[in-house]
């Protein structure tokens, strides 16, 4: 497995928010098709780490390579790299002034010059995949949280990314809507998408993750397979966290 070169390679990354060390010399590499779930208490830096991958957060030290391109370098066209990195946010962030369909077609049409009809038929396929094609022509505010998040996943997929980043995708949802979003993510994982997921959903981590990464105070404390991590964590911080959350 080590002979496959990583699609995401985070090397010795540090990030400061004022005097707070949000990330402290973090390294992590992720292989193509791998599903990595990052967990940890709030304020541990897990979202910040995820957001450095597509440079929504810039790092103060260290380098990050995505598909061989150094995103931390100012010479890299970050907009190009971001087209390969789909991102799903906690608060969905759909464009409220566009219909569901337009949310999906806007980026492919404007950024990849996909003809409108082709973009629309692809978008309809994606909406079908996430189970809400009947809502294609409504505005996002008319959808439930779970529906909005599924649209947000479809919107990211419409750019045909190589990697999907999920930043606590179910944390803002009512409990009865979490399942429908996780189902879509499981389906995506089965199709072989490379996924990096920050979540508190331990059931999802167990079922889908190839690797669980536990962070605390800006560093990766422990990583391993879900079986190993959930049954026999080595570090006390991880044990404590698991006892609190499970």
């Amino acid at each position, binding site marked *: 497995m080590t002979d496959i070169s990583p699609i995401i390679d985070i090397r010795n990354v540090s990030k400061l928010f004022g005097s707070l060390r949000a990330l402290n010399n973090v390294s992590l590499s992720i292989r193509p098709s791998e599903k990595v779930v990052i967990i940890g208490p709030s304020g541990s830096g897990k979202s910040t780490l995820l957001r450095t991958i597509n440079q929504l957060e810039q790092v103060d030290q260290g380098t990050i390579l995505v598909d061989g391109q150094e995103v931390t370098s100012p010479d890299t066209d970050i907009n190009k790299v971001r087209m390969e990195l789909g*991102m799903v946010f906690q*608060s969905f962030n759909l464009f409220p*002034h566009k219909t569901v369909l337009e949310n999906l077609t806007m980026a492919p049409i404007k950024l990849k010059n996909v003809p409108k009809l082709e973009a629309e038929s692809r978008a309809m396929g994606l909406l079908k995949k996430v189970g809400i094609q009947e809502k294609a022509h409504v*505005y996002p505010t008319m959808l439930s949280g779970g529906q909005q998040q599924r649209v947000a996943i479809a919107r990211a997929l419409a750019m045909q990314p190589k990697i999907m980043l999920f930043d606590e995708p179910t944390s803002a949802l009512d409990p009865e809507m979490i399942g429908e979003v996780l189902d879509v993510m499981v389906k995506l994982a089965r199709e072989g998408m490379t996924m990096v997921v920050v979540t508190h959903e331990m059931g999802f981590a167990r079922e889908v993750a190839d690797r669980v990464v536990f962070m605390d105070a800006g560093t990766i404390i422990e990583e391993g397979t879900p079986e190993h991590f959930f049954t026999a964590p080595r570090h006390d911080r991880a044990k404590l966290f698991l006892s609190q959350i499970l």
Partner: protein
Amino acid sequence: MSTTPLSLDVSDGAAIPRKKDRGLFSAWWLSFIGALAITAFLCITRPDPYLRILAFVPDGILVTFQVTTLSILLALVLGLITGLGRISRNRALNLIASTYVEVIRGIPLLVQLFYIYYALAAIPYVSKLPPLASAVIAMGFCYGAYMGEVFRAGIESIDKGQTEAARSLGFNRRQTMLLVILPQAWRTILPPVGNEFIALLKDSSLVSILAVADLLRRGREFAGETFFYFEAYTIVALVYLVITLVLSKGVSHMESRLNYYDRH
């Protein structure tokens, strides 16, 4: 306990009626019907000066609208540039925009009008601008500064998540602003822009001192020739009132139509 300080939002434009605000709504109708009724009453009971005045001022109404529309267009362009400058990371742009706003806000509009029309022409080799152009430039620059603040506030009112979502899809800064932020900010910006338009229309009466034949100027001319001061200025006031009331209604209507994607 909430620590949000109490804020008062007072504008010099005509009040924009809100759909649910019954009090303001009926105040609007009272003013509007009242103004029309008084005008009709005056014209019927004393057609001699009043109908003549009413026939004399429409040319001025056109000029008032011309000055107002041209000024607001200039103000919108300057306002957009200024608003973007004020939120720009580029320090020089930011400083230029902020200084423009500070300077303009600190000088009365009447002084700015005099300055552009009379003072600039006193500089050797600078020819005097035509009155209409001076008026439009002075009012456009003055309101552009206010409009800049409206644009800035409108842009900043859009959730940061919108920018992040657009950028994460691969849109650059400019595309994000044009495709995602401004179309949404417009909804926040439009009511105050409408308000500024109405305020500008009223302030446009100042240009009558530059010999621009606007509504007030026409009233003055009529009064000057016939000595019907009371009658002429009464009609001028009523016409301004009716125009601003109709416009504020229009802005209110536009505002409610802009909420199309918020219906649940």
